[in-house]
């Protein structure tokens, strides 16, 4: 029997690693991968709570999150390809036209 706080701790650690990646990396593909990692950490928390309370609702939320993640990757990489065609780069510092 795994204690729930260990599951939540693992989830928090993975989420923080994803946050570090999304905030500090400049390769847009790696930033998208870090966001996937953060979604996965949230899934882990959902599954852990579903197990702890003996309810399956958390697992159904996870299915929805997986669908949203797949859609996000499809659209995000479409935007990435369109950007790369225009700017010839995946460096986010070269895509700062809308930043402040």
């Amino acid at each position, binding site marked *: *029997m*795994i*204690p*729930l*706080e*260990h*599951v*939540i*701790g*693992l989830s*928090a*650690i*993975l*989420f*923080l*690693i*994803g*946050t*570090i*990646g999304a*905030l*500090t990396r*400049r*390769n847009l*593909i*790696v930033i*998208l*991968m*870090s966001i996937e*990692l953060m979604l996965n950490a949230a*899934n*882990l928390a959902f*599954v852990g709570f*579903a*197990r*702890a*309370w*003996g309810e*399956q*609702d958390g*697992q*159904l939320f*996870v*299915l*929805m999150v*997986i*669908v949203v*993640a*797949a*859609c*996000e*990757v*499809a*659209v995000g990489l*479409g*935007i990435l*390809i*369109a950007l790369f065609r225009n700017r010839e780069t*995946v460096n986010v*510092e070269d895509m700062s036209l809308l930043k402040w």
Partner: protein
Amino acid sequence: MSASELFFYGAGALAVVSALGMVANVRNTVAAAMCLVVTMISLAVVFVVLEAHLVAALQIMVYAGAIVVVFLFVVMLLNLRRDTFEPPRQRLLKAAGTVLTLGLAVVFLSLIPTSLPTVREIPEGFGGYRAVGAELFTRFVLPFEVTSLLILAAVVGAVVLAKRRLD
């Protein structure tokens, strides 16, 4: 230490290490994607330990099988095997991101309660395809159907965005 604990802590450590490898891998984008696959598969092992069998199977099929493959396709399509970025211009922002994350870490880890209620007995077939599928098609049928609209919108959007010229 029982087998499930062994699998949980082993796979959890592997997930953390490969996630760190993904974030810290500055040179090679393909290797970062491979590290992401390892993280996804170890998380699937953790899901099995936590009695979420259907979710574990979908994790491998959708994340490791589809999403990372799409990432690899894009990396190959753009021919980005190696990052050739010049040194960062905005060190201050990068440092600010790291400090923000460390603050978030302190908040997260202090928020984790020490004793949470846990049900020891779970119903028969918990997390299997039969039980989860029955819930999905009865109580959660509206979100399930809305999901199909979301996928349709994402497919159309991806095609429109990635197409070179719309006629």
